[in-house]
């Protein structure tokens, strides 16, 4: 943003920007960062530059802090020196009060970035002996502004003068003059005022400040206080019109408008294992996405805490840090209970991987809880946060607020890339809808249900949804063993879904049948082997027979041949003997 802050300097810049004299210079309201986180988004840029802003609210609503924070942050972060006219504090109190917010008041004063003038108004003690005006105040303010070249001014609260002086007509004229003076000097001012019963402010100051009016409110609903902020008007600019919860935290006021959170957080492709092997498999084999929000809903006693703890244990096992926000159980109780299912969380607590934050939902306002969680997150930088159960907030505040808080919490954690596991106690009617209406913000939703059958109650877990990953559509029976959580396939057959004993019985029966079938097969195989052996033997016998027959035949043939040879030899010898010589032919001639 450019810095033609003072109106006096503006005209030359304008004429240069708009050479045509026919075009009227547009009245663009310049804005300055307010120093209050979230408010700038809400007002599309901050407070009107060079103009007074009225901040009104009841006692303890945070208006002084608002004003001081604007000036201090302006000095710290935007190099805009500031003046604070403090009507209600003494110098001692002032620095002390704001030191707790980390505002380096004294340091800034020493660096001439801040000047605090403590204006004491004696209440109705001053005798008025004639006509007067408040030029003294103007002189002080002007002197302060000039001394450090202030760009911002906080006046807290100007209406104190109404208790110190009696001429109300004069005071009103002076207040009007003061606001005009601030505007003429191009000072970005925050003026606080007490909330009135009928009007916005007790003395009707909103009449004099027309540019920006912000209302702070602290309301107690069901014994829990919630702070809210509303931009009542902001001339010449669009702004969020709703009431937005705000927090007074260790860094001062922060407004967290729902709409302003945006959906621009970084998205990770990293996966984190769930701690339950079979659940990982159900979620495409790799577990949750890092930085995603996991909701685990179920009726009482369905093992939500166990699943959450198992996840926490897995994270700690990877050397990551985990914050476990326990809203219904004591730390020791969770540790003991988890030990019974074979999870030693205590060692993670000892190694400072796991931090428990135990709080009663009714022990503080919603924003207080948020602040504490913010604080823990900033202190420990966890990879994962478990909130067990988020539904317990429902009983403490109106649902809209709980939803708003949950949304802010989820967005906050998501923005930091922290994997968040929320457990949610759903009512036994078992609707797949959270009462606080955060379902749509959830990335992975696991539902644990009771299945009642044959006088037994068994748990079944399924993945209701899991964005951006292939996941199982099966209902798994969910067993809590002394070695942690196990998921088994439920029996789905002609008898419907069977769990627990019914499933076991059914499985046994199936096993029996399988056994039987196996035995039959074995017998058949054996039988076949025997038959093969028999036949083999027969074949061998036949072969032997054949060989014998062949040998016999050969023998007969041989014998016949020899006999034939003998016979022909005999005949020769007979013929030879008949002719009486060796040559039968010569004997003939």
């Amino acid at each position, binding site marked *: 943003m450019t810095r033609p802050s003072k109106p006096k300097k503006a005209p030359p810049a304008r004429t240069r920007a708009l050479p045509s004299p026919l075009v009227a210079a547009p009245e663009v309201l310049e804005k300055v960062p307010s120093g209050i986180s979230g408010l700038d988004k809400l007002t599309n840029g901050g407070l009107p530059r060079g103009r007074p802003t009225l901040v009104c609210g009841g006692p303890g609503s945070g208006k002084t802090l608002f004003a001081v924070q604007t000036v201090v942050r302006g000095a710290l972060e935007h190099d805009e020196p500031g003046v604070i006219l403090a009507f209600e504090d003494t110098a001692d109190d002032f620095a002390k009060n704001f030191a707790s917010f980390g505002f380096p008041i004294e340091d800034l004063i020493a660096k001439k970035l801040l000047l605090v*003038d403590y*204006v*004491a*108004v*004696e209440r109705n*003690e*001053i*005798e*008025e*002996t*004639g*006509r*007067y*005006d*408040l*030029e*003294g*105040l*103007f*002189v*002080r303010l*002007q*002197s302060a502004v000039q001394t450090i070249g202030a760009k911002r001014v906080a006046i807290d609260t100007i209406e104190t*003068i109404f208790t*110190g*002086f009696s001429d109300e007509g004069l005071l009103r004229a002076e207040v009007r003059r003061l606001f005009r003076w601030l505007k003429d000097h191009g000072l970005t001012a925050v003026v606080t005022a007490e909330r009135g019963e009928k009007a916005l402010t007790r003395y009707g100051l909103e009449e004099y400040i027309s540019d920006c009016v912000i209302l702070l409110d602290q309301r107690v609903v069901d014994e829990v206080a919630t702070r809210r902020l509303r931009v009542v008007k902001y001339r010449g600019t669009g702004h969020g019109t709703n009431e937005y919860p705000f927090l007074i935290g260790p860094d001062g006021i922060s407004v967290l408008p729902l709409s302003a959170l945006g959906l621009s957080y970084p998205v990770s492709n990293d996966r984190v294992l769930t701690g339950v092997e079979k659940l990982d498999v159900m979620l495409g084999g790799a577990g949750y996405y890092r930085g995603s929000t996991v909701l685990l809903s179920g009726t009482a006693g369905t093992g939500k805490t166990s699943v959450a703890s198992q996840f926490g244990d897995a994270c700690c096992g990877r050397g990551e840090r985990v914050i476990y926000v326990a809203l219904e159980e004591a730390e020791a109780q969770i540790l003991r209970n988890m030990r019974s299912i074979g999870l030693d969380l205590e060692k993670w607590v000892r190694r400072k991987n796991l931090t428990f934050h135990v709080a009663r939902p009714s022990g503080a306002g919603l924003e207080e809880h948020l602040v504490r969680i913010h604080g823990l997150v900033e202190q420990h930088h966890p990879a994962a946060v478990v909130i067990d159960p988020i539904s317990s907030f429902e009983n403490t505040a109106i649902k809209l607020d709980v939803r708003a808080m949950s949304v802010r919490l989820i967005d906050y954690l998501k923005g930091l890339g922290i994997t968040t596991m929320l457990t949610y106690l759903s009512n036994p009617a078992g609707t797949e809808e959270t009462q606080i209406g955060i379902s749509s913000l959830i990335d992975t939703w696991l539902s644990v249900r009771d299945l009642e059958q044959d006088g037994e109650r068994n748990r079944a877990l399924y993945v209701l949804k899991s964005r951006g990953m292939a996941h199982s559509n099966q209902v798994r029976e969910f067993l809590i063993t002394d070695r942690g959580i196990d998921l088994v396939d439920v029996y789905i057959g002609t008898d419907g879904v069977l769990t627990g004993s019914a499933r076991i019985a059914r499985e046994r029966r199936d096993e029996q049948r399988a056994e039987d079938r196996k035995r039959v097969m074995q017998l058949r195989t054996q039988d076949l082997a025997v038959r093969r052996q028999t036949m083999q033997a027969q074949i061998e016998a036949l072969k032997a027979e054949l060989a014998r027959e062949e040998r016999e035949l050969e023998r007969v043939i041989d014998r016949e041949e020899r006999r034939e040879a003998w016979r022909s030899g005999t005949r020769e010898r007979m013929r030879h003997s008949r002719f009486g010589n060796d040559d039968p032919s010569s004997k003939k001639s």
Partner: protein
Amino acid sequence: MKLSKTTKKRTVSKLEKAARAPRSGRRPAGTPREAGDAREIWQLRLYVAGQTPRSILAFANLKKICEEHLHGRYRIEVIDLLKNPTLARGDQILAVPTLVRKLPPPVKKIIGDFTNTERVLVGLNLVPFAESLR
């Protein structure tokens, strides 16, 4: 005016002796200041912002009242805040003109152009005694 002036003058001088009685009742007895009261110098500081008609009027009014009631026992210091703006913080000045009675204690503050003499006297703790003498 002239008549009242004389009566008042007398009133004050009478008052001076009686004046300390109710005061001493307000603070612990035996405060060393009591003895020198009659001759004590009143130190007054008048804050104005510039030489405006109102500041000139205020100074004139003040001077007149002092002459009447504190003749020879007062000193007025005029501070122009336009010349010395930082001095406004010390005495917590908001309205102008403001008159601060530095001495005698306690510090008293009155504002306005001092046209209402009665109120000036009340504001400076001069009048209750005047009333008591009526």
